[in-house]
């Protein structure tokens, strides 16, 4: 009998897309009580070399025996050889990951999905709006814009968190406050004595910005409830529906458009997204 084994079957030269690759944790930063920033390095040089990503894409992190979880990549594509993932301790896999130490090995699969249209955004002003953990995928875009800052016009970042303790990347953002090439606006819903910035929801910040709708791209990521209100503000500024981009969180399990869990409207978040334009999102039932 002619048995066929998976490792012998020709799969367009890409191998088994479900197979995670070992990656070493090279750094762990505590960001808040719930979130840590993990820096990973794929061990196999060929796999590492092949891991070329765009801002907005995600990876599946594997803790064998526990499972896989989709995590958006926070580092810039321009930072090669390492991948940063900002992970909230919220489920089985992320909980197990939070217990890992520097030097430990985890499984990694990716990059997956469709990211922000970085090349298309070049030459324009950029308005980024993040809520809570939504800063994680936008951080990749922010870092990439930072690395190629001369390619962009005005860059405005609005970031809202529940309270000062939940502001992610606070140290870096504090350092950026006085930079002239980034207009950084942080706000919290509830203030405390460590906070001297604005208080209120992120949409309040729109009063303070001028937007040139002819040359501004928007990028949004946050909790599901946030999108509608941010889009409303962007539309009030006359921004085009096809220049507003947003990243959706769905249950990406296989990450390659097979398992069906991340269905959003008639699309799959894992291969058609997770980044969609507002025009696309308007056409996705139950997306916003």
């Amino acid at each position, binding site marked *: 009998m002619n048995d066929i084994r998976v490792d012998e079957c020709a799969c367009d030269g890409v191998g088994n897309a479900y197979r*995670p690759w070992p990656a070493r944790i090279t750094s762990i930063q505590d960001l808040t009580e719930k979130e840590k920033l993990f820096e990973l390095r794929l061990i196999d040089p060929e796999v590492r070399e092949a891991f070329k990503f765009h801002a907005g894409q995600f990876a599946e992190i594997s803790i064998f*025996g526990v499972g896989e979880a989709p995590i958006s990549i926070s580092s810039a594509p321009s930072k090669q050889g390492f991948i940063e993932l900002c992970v909230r301790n919220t*489920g089985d896999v992320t909980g197990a990951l939070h217990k890992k130490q520097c030097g430990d090995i985890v499984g990694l699969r990716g990059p997956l999905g469709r990211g922000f249209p970085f090349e298309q955004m070049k030459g324009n002003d950029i308005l980024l709006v993040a809520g809570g953990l939504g800063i994680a995928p936008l951080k990749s875009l922010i870092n990439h814009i930072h690395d190629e800052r001369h390619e962009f016009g005005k860059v405005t970042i609005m970031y809202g968190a529940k309270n000062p303790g939940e502001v992610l990347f606070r140290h870096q953002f504090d350092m950026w406050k006085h930079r002239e090439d980034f207009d950084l606006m942080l706000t919290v819903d509830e203030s405390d004595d460590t906070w001297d910035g604005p208080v209120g929801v992120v949409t309040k910040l729109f009063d303070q910005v001028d937007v040139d709708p002819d040359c501004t791209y928007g990028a949004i990521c946050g909790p599901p409830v946030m999108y509608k209100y941010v889009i409303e503000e962007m539309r009030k500024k006359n921004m085009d529906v096809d220049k507003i981009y947003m990243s959706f969180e769905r*249950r990406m399990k296989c990450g390659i458009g097979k398992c069906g869990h991340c269905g959003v409207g008639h699309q799959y978040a894992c291969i058609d997204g997770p980044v969609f334009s507002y025009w696309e999102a308007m056409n996705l039932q139950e997306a916003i």
Partner: protein
Amino acid sequence: MFFRVVDKERLPDLIAGLSSDHEVIGPIEKDGRFVFAPISDPSQIRLDYDTTLLPPKKWLMPPEETMMHFNCADEEVTDDTVVASPRVLFGLHPCDINSLLLLDNVFLQGHVDPYYKARRDNTLIVGMSCTPSPTCFCNVWDTDEVHWGFDIFLTDLGDRYYASLRTVKGAEVLDRHVDSRAVTEKDTADFQQVVHEFKQGFSNNVDTAQLPVLLDAKFDSPVWDDFGSECLSCGACSMVCPTCYCFDVKDRLEVDQKSGARVRTWDSCQFKEFAAVAHGQNFREDRSSRLKYRYYHKYWGYLSKFERVLCVGCGRCTLACPSGISPVKVIEALQAGGSR
């Protein structure tokens, strides 16, 4: 395509011949219904079956399969292979062969699914003509005919089969295992007559006009709440569906807690946790939204990608649903402007 004619009494020769170097899976009777199961004796096979309880997808993507073995200590995959033995799916009706073509789109395009591909590549398909049953509606999707996706297709002409040979392998096994003869004009005329009668046999002539438009335009229709209130979210429709391919992935540890296996199992968008994400958000919490999503994906989501609906009208879901919900009823309700 070219054709041969096989006398009915010679068919066991083909099954026996195939059995010598293949596992032959065909329809057999089980408790008054039919199932696809391994055939040990050609006389077991029931080519007069109406439909099977489970569709043939089971033999290409098993209800449960191991994707890889792993070692927890170094997070290393130790084995991600599957062994697919040569197999024949014998007696598949056109709807079921068409269903495999729809699964091929998902599993063989983009990132290739190596487990599905290994089995698909090692599976020979022998199709068989059928008689429309009261729950069949393949006619509305044109899946009552099949022109590729099989190796041999046998059309029952009463005392003989009109064999369509689609692949070299199909032609080769027919030639090797069974006496056949060239097709005459009378054979083809009889074939046409059989097809004509077959086409007259359908009782469900559902109006599918502009279905994708209706699904969007009537997304908030009370139709969905009506059906949703009857749906039990049992997922039976997905399990028996030849085109539902969703799966869940789980890790299972060995007793030593050091190694284990990553396993995938059939899943259903009708189950409550299907679209839930980590911190409590569930994008389809209520039953009607899940029922709606299933139809929306079948008749619009999949269509938007592959230009076909993800349904072959086999009627298995109609037979399996404890609440009597069927695609025919749902589509009719949408066409009727919300009144049932």
